[in-house]
């Protein structure tokens, strides 16, 4: 657990460092900040405080520092102190923005509804319920060895990791060969497949499989 936390922290440190590095890189040469485009405000554009959209007034604080900085970059004051520095105007959303917002709402609602449905419709018993099925009928012989498919499935409601599976090849009551395999991770309602490899003919022997140990993530 500590290992993945360390790795996640390291990765996140890198992704946080990237914008800082880029910002520092840009800021290192102030003389190069020369090409910010000045877009004149369109007629009728007012201050943000007077926007008809209810969101604007409640969620966006006035930023005099940004207004001032933008005026300086553009090399002069704007005709109206409250005019916006670029083509983005406050006010009601246009058709494109409403469309994006609508699609976004549908996507997020679908995600939330699916999560709620999955939670309510869950029928698996609690805990990990791991079983092993050996499919002797589908065994194949290759280069003198028998490859026997098996499936390890978790039908419980909890995932399992490091699932140790033991295979015993028996002649009558006597175990003549024993093999083990380990499944790194089995999600709830998940399964994984593999093949048992043995020199013993499965048609002449009995193959038993059982789960020996597992861990919880």
């Amino acid at each position, binding site marked *: 657990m500590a290992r993945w936390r360390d790795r996640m922290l390291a990765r996140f440190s890198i992704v946080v460092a990237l914008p800082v590095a880029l910002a520092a890189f840009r800021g290192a040469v102030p003389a190069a900040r020369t090409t910010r485009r000045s877009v004149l405000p369109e007629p009728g554009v007012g201050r943000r405080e007077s926007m008809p959209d209810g969101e604007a007034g409640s*969620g966006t604080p006035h930023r005099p520092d940004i207004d001032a900085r933008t005026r300086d970059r553009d090399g002069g004051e704007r005709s109206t102190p409250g005019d916006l520095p670029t083509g983005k105007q406050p006010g009601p959303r246009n058709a494109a923005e409403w469309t994006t917002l609508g699609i976004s709402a549908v996507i997020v609602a679908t995600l939330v509804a699916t999560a709620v449905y999955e939670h309510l419709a869950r029928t698996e018993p609690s805990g990990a319920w791991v079983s092993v099925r050996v499919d002797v009928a589908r065994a194949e012989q290759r280069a003198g060895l028998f490859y026997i498919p098996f499936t390890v499935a978790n039908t419980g409601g909890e995932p399992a990791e490091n699932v140790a599976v033991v295979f015993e090849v028996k002649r009558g009551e006597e175990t003549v060969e024993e093999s083990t395999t380990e499944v790194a991770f089995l999600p709830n309602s*998940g399964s994984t497949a593999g093949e048992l490899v043995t020199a013993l003919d499965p048609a002449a022997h009995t193959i038993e499989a059982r789960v020996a140990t597992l861990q919880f993530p």
Partner: protein
Amino acid sequence: MRDVAGRAEGGEWARETDDLLRGLTGGFLIGIPLMYTMETWWIGETLSMPHALVFLLLAYALNFGFVAFAGFRGGEAGSHHPFGDALEATALAAVAAAVTLALLHQLAPGDPLDVVVGRIAVETVPISLGISVANHILAPRETRIGSGEGEKALGGGEGTARAIAIDLGASFGGALFLSFSIAPTEEVPLLVTEVPTLYLPAVILFSLALSYGIVFEAGFGGQDRRRGTTGPFQRPLTETVAAYVVSLLTCAGTLFLFGQIDAGTDWYVAYAQIVVLGLPAAIGGAAGRLAV
């Protein structure tokens, strides 16, 4: 009047597309390293659905805070519609996570729905944070090199050569920044064993499309200058492909440096590792070109 209205409507859609692409750029820059972290895939698999909802709610709440002061839309920092923009950042991140995870075969047909929701929910948080602060990662319409400075200041071939060297060097630097942190990890060889062969051309196309969109469509700094340059390697498509090749060479170098590939490595394994790592490298390379 109809023409004017039509152009205005077209402008709305073009500006909206720019805004979304700008947001996606920020999202990928912040989120791509975590999308290449297997622990986030596992957490997504084991996540309970109430926990997944907490991730989505957290993403929305954090986005609301960030878009209010940064945002991804053109214009001054801070959103005029923080409630809606935070929702859009969350949805955009969910789509970006789903597409990328599908390309990396971490979401596949037949996966249990709770695994799909869990993995998307986990990746949505870092990607949407990047979307929410896209304007502060790479400021719109701002560049360190003035309009046509490279070519016009020096004139002729010398200026063009300098501009090419700057672009390819910046691609190398940006690609190195992201690929260096992913190349030594177990995820790269693991993904190569899991990603179907026919997905790799899709990964290549996705990398090229992202790179092109970031540099030439998202409205970041120098976009107009780049579109206006006439050097042989600086037409948008040519520059995109050239920068992608530089990113792939950077990936090959970092993978070789960390021992993931060597002279004895099967050619397909080496090719697949380079292409898989090429996605974050292409994003880094595009960001690098925007930074100069």
